[in-house]
């Protein structure tokens, strides 16, 4: 009995530790007073200021544009790659999969600086300085592995006889791929897309090293403001980021658990 109370109290304390800072942040984004320690009444002032700040709006535009573009491109390359990898022989597959895991396990900061080296090193040849496009390429790069890792399991579940049947009935390989394979792995592709989109929105470290000449995304903006100290506008911006990512990931999670329960049903 005592043990159960102790356990419960312990768990509550841990949840308090995890959530108190976030709750405070959200609450104080509506605080009229500039100081975090005093409650000066409810206000939407900081949100209003945020949306009047052209720098924030530009950062928001960059964040969304890069998230959409990088997610779309990564999904296309990644899905094609997954189909290809699925067909590969064992050893080749193992090599490619290890390459795929490399950016996933490599520390972000190393990925970031090595990409920065690439972009600066190739600038004389490509004429492309650090900025929007380098950040976009970096995001595509770290997104592709996640798309592959979401699509591959779907390909493994696929009944390959259906594809062969389509070929026997006279479909060209590409037609069969489009009409038979793609619709069946669609849930995996969508999950990969959403994951890529979310990771792109959420990324700071790699963006930080691969951008330049005044191009920033929301995370970089928050960092450069937070470095200067506490500011209620960051509270408002953080709250918006928190809510957005929460909604996105709830969708991803729901999709994944739905997929999993479908798999379980089919196994039964």
């Amino acid at each position, binding site marked *: 009995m005592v043990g159960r109370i102790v356990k419960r109290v312990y768990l509550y304390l841990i949840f308090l530790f995890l959530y108190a800072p976030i709750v405070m942040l959200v609450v104080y984004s509506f605080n009229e007073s500039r100081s975090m320690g005093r409650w000066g009444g409810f206000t939407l002032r900081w949100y209003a200021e945020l949306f009047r700040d052209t720098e924030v709006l530009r950062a928001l535009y960059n964040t969304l544009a890069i998230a959409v573009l990088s997610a779309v491109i990564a999904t296309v390359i990644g899905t094609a790659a997954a189909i290809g990898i699925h067909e590969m022989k064992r050893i080749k597959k193992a090599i490619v999969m290890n390459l795929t895991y490399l950016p996933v396990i490599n520390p*972000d900061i190393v990925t970031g600086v090595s990409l920065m080296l690439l972009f600066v090193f190739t600038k004389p040849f490509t004429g492309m300085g650090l900025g929007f496009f380098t950040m976009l390429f970096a995001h595509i790069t770290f997104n592709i592995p996640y798309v592959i890792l979401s699509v591959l399991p779907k390909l493994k579940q696929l009944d390959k006889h259906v594809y062969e049947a389509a070929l026997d009935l006279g479909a060209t390989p590409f037609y069969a791929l489009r009409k038979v394979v793609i619709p069946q792995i669609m849930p995996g592709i969508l999950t990969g897309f959403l994951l890529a989109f979310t990771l792109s929105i959420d990324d700071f470290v790699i963006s930080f090293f691969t951008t330049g000449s005044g191009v920033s995304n929301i995370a970089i903006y928050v960092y450069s403001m937070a470095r200067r100290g506490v500011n209620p506008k960051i509270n408002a911006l953080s709250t918006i980021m928190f809510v957005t990512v929460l909604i996105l990931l709830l969708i991803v999670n729901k999709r994944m658990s739905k997929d999993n329960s479908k798999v379980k049903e089919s196994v039964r």
Partner: protein
Amino acid sequence: MKKAWYAYPYLVWMAIFIVVPLFLLLFYTFTATTEEGIRFTLQHIKRVWEPIYLMVLLRSILLALICTVVCLLIGYPVALILASKEYSQKRVLALLFVIPMWINFLVRTYAWMSLLGKNGLIDMVMNFLHLPPVQLLYTDHAVVLGMVYNFLPFMVLPIYSVLTKMDKSIIEAAEDLGADYITVLKRIIIPLSLPGVISGITMVFMPAVTTFIISRLLGGGQYILIGNLIEQQFIVVGDWNFGSAISFVLTVIILISMGIMRKYDREYEGGAIW
């Protein structure tokens, strides 16, 4: 069907954006540009071992280790409690543990900045209780606190997932044979959960040793960990050779620690067969 070529665009992409950059990193680490041209050198790697930089390296490792130990001590009981809950409750509680992981790293760290700072909540509470104000922000403690806060879920979740998959009948058998809870914990639960502990340690230690955001925001501008040193060399100083050399050393440290962890993991699995 011959569809392996579908992967070629991806392979080309990864060659350009993953493999070439890593080689560039190696190139900058081991070369120096002089008037006679580019030559091979170990001077940048040697410079990392100068006392001033070595201290930064050791401090980063030490803080990451402290953070890992604290996460393990706090997190293991949490995983144990979560795993012992009824099924429906378990899922909700586990989800509650995952949600903070979804919040942007910067936001999570920033939240502590405003709690610990001057006129922050903790300062106000101390004031209210007529206690002397303490400097919390911009100390070692703040940095470790920020790390633990950010990485605790990475420790809890792998242990939790191993614990939930554990065969409960073994525990029941031990209890039937007269073992008390402490014995069961020591002889069965902890040894069987070791793979989870190992991946938890890896998942906490890696990001903790490479972070530069937590140390920058909670440790202040003068606070230097290995991540900050890399950032400084690339962004402020512009010494890419030295920056690359530190990144290289950092990668080696991580590879070594992953290798050690894997070894333990394998030893454990080897033991499980018998």
